[in-house]
């Protein structure tokens, strides 16, 4: 590999940085990204503005006129917000629990968060279909207590999607919140305790306010991931739980309307970029403090 950086010699100086920019090291990845990431996204944007007859705004006109799009967008927003809310609450509690453990126990506790994090979403979705069905584990366990199977409708509806998505998102909350809690100055809590504050008061007045940036970051992260979700709504949702990603799939494979599929993808991408920019501003502020 004949790098640019190799051709220019490094001046003999004590500087730790690679003086000749080191751009050559980046180059292979940039070429790959241009070819397999930038160009494809360019295709999506381009296709959203053209039909078979040439340039057109039909895709976006459809988005503005169609009831279907409005409904799916509203469903996506609702599901994303609810799944995020549930995940942030559960993830925060888990992070709080891990924070109070000794480092050794914390590593074990964290391993049981990492394991589902690295498990395929298909595996989790499949298990949930076994757990949540009318004859599933949850219903039959409840039936064992109640004496009859309540046949709660837990799957192929909104509840199934929310359970599946929260299950996937909780680790994304645990990691940033735990990092924040561990970085907090323990003296503050101790000072509050000395002055007579109860553990709950310390949590409410010291720990929780100090962890708001992490909560906000985790919220944005969950929204980014859940808004574009594809697998869970398709496998655990019902007919009315179609999200934007599923609509894109529908228009690409069934309806074969690439213009509309691309226009929806551009809307989704724009929403994600806005959320990502909010996230990067937030984390930038945190670093500045």
């Amino acid at each position, binding site marked *: 590999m004949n790098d640019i950086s190799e051709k220019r010699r490094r001046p003999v100086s004590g500087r730790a940085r690679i003086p000749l920019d080191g751009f050559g090291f980046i180059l292979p990845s940039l070429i790959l990204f241009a070819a397999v990431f930038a160009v494809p996204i360019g295709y999506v944007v381009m296709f959203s503005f053209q039909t078979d007859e040439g340039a057109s705004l039909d895709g976006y006109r459809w988005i503005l006129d169609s009831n279907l799009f409005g409904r799916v967008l509203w469903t996506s927003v609702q599901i994303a917000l609810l799944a995020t809310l549930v995940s942030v609450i559960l993830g925060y509690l888990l992070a709080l629990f891990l924070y109070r453990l000794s480092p050794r126990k914390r590593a074990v506790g964290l391993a049981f968060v990492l394991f589902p994090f690295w498990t395929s979403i298909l595996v989790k979705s499949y298990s949930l279909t*076994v757990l949540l069905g009318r004859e599933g584990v949850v219903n039959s366990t409840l039936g064992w207590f109640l004496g009859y199977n309540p046949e709660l409708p837990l799957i192929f509806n909104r509840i199934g999607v929310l359970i599946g998505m929260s299950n996937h998102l909780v680790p994304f909350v645990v990691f940033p919140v735990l990092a924040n809690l561990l970085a907090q100055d323990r003296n503050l809590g101790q000072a509050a305790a000395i002055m007579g504050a109860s553990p709950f008061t310390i949590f409410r007045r010291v720990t929780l306010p100090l962890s708001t940036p992490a909560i906000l970051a985790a919220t944005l992260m969950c929204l980014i991931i859940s808004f574009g979700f594809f697998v869970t709504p*398709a496998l655990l949702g019902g007919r009315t739980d179609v999200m934007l990603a599923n609509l894109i799939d529908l228009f690409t494979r069934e309806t074969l309307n690439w213009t509309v599929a691309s226009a929806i993808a551009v809307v989704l991408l724009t929403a994600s970029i806005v959320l990502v920019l909010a996230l990067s501003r937030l984390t930038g502020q945190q670093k500045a403090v």
Partner: protein
Amino acid sequence: MGKRSSPSRRGIAEWLFLLLIGGIYVFLTLPSVLTIPISLGGSRSVTFPPTEFSLDLYRRFFASPVWTGSLVESLIVGAATAVLATLIGAFAAYGLARGNFIGQKLIGAILLSPILVPSIVIALGVYFYFSQMKLIGTTTGLVLAHSILTIPYVIVVLLSGLRQLDQKIETAAGIMGASPLRVFTHVVVPQLRYSLASAFLFAFLISFDETVISWFIAGTHATTLPVVMYGSLKVEVAPEIAAAATMLSLTSITIILCYAIFQKQEKSAA
């Protein structure tokens, strides 16, 4: 105020908190491990808890050319992706960590952005693009697309590895006349071997589990295990899925354990 009465109340609160945490842990981990007992329960009834012990589902899995073919394809794509992503990602991480060039921050953000762009958007774009390049349904196409998705993770793992290295050694090698590339291959890579191994394994795992992009571009010739699983889960749940899911789970467990071992090794080596 009320300090005397609080310990018992606090005890109850603490107990409730732990109960809640236990519940969250069950909710979080049960779906990831449940497939293992299901897969060993035999094919007559796919239920939990299993009523009998049998390897029947695995026999059926390995007797089916669709399932085994997809498993082999997944292994090939995963391995090739891991090689490509680790190689390119290692260069990129080193350039980002030690370089000094225009737009460094922006380039770093671009290289990490596939984590935050919805997979469906990448999938759609790659589908259009590969249709024209005749890469739909090819192993090459899958490896290229998966590499884009895994390189960010490789870079993150390696950047944290690079932060722990003593830069003075690299500077010394440079002073003694080693070119940056030689410093990288002879000084940095050997020290970074545990991080590189972790990055390789995670790249393999991400590729091995990847569903959305593969669903769009795998075609009929290069279907991966997740694509067959997703297709089957969408229509009618084939019993072999339990066996396939267990293989995915066991791959995750193995890779996390290896990662833990590497981290320990790295610590004891430092």
